[in-house]
């Protein structure tokens, strides 16, 4: 077996992981973000509809739910892996070839990982998990 064919058989696990995060982040942002922005960013603040984060009591009640915490983690963290890839290649398209390099990958994908870690920290420290 040649070296070339040996390399060809290796599964590209890292590639698979980043593409999975890119695709799922894109789907989640497409399916879920518009309604959050519409209600939490426009209709709620304008007083057209009641919204869960407009009052402390209602906001804390939902933030204690573990399913809500998990949902918010997925909603916030996954799209950042999508954004990291798109913004990196936006810079490439706009004439910054250095954005292809490893340092840029560390900055962008590392940024997505950092946002994920911060999100986990905030969700775990903001309101105690409550099953009630």
């Amino acid at each position: 077996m040649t070296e070339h064919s040996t390399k060809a058989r290796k599964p590209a696990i890292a590639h698979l992981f980043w593409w999975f995060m890119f695709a799922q982040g894109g789907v989640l942002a497409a399916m879920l973000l518009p309604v959050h922005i519409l209600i939490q960013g426009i209709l709620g603040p304008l007083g057209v509809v009641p919204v869960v984060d407009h009052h402390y009591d209602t906001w804390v009640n939902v933030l204690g739910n573990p399913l809500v915490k998990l949902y918010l983690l997925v909603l916030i963290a996954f799209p950042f892996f999508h954004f990291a890839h798109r913004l990196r290649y936006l810079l490439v398209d706009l004439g910054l070839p250095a954005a292809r390099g490893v340092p840029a990958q560390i900055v962008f994908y590392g940024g997505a990982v950092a946002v994920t870690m911060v999100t986990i920290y905030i969700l775990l420290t903001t309101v105690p998990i409550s099953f009630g």
Partner: protein
Amino acid sequence: MVPPPHGGRLGGEAGTREFGWSMPRGWWTRRPHYFWYIVREFTSLPLALWLLWLLVEIRRAQDGPTGYHPHSSLGFVIFSVIVLLFALYHSVTFLSLAGAILHFNVADRPIPSQLIVLSQFGAWAAASAVVGFVLIYFGRT
């Protein structure tokens, strides 16, 4: 036929496999198609900013009942309106790609791409309805 945006200039020497790639400055302003492609990629930035705001909104629940003041200024609403336009553009362009990416066979017959795209938009509508209901229902005082 759409001409290449880079003008077809390739560097490097003949006979080698390495070649340079140069895009003229402002190439994306030359055609509406290129412009909207860049807008599609750019949608990530305002969406990321809005999600960071949501993270701050979650964090503000630590301020307690007397210190919690949700964002409701006109400036924030205008910001959200602008982000919503980018979000809708991301949703429409991303979900429309499903017809080209996803391929399914039922009884050895391929499902039409229009049907796959329609299912994506249907799922978007259903998800929006559910999330919208939850955000409003649990917001009642």
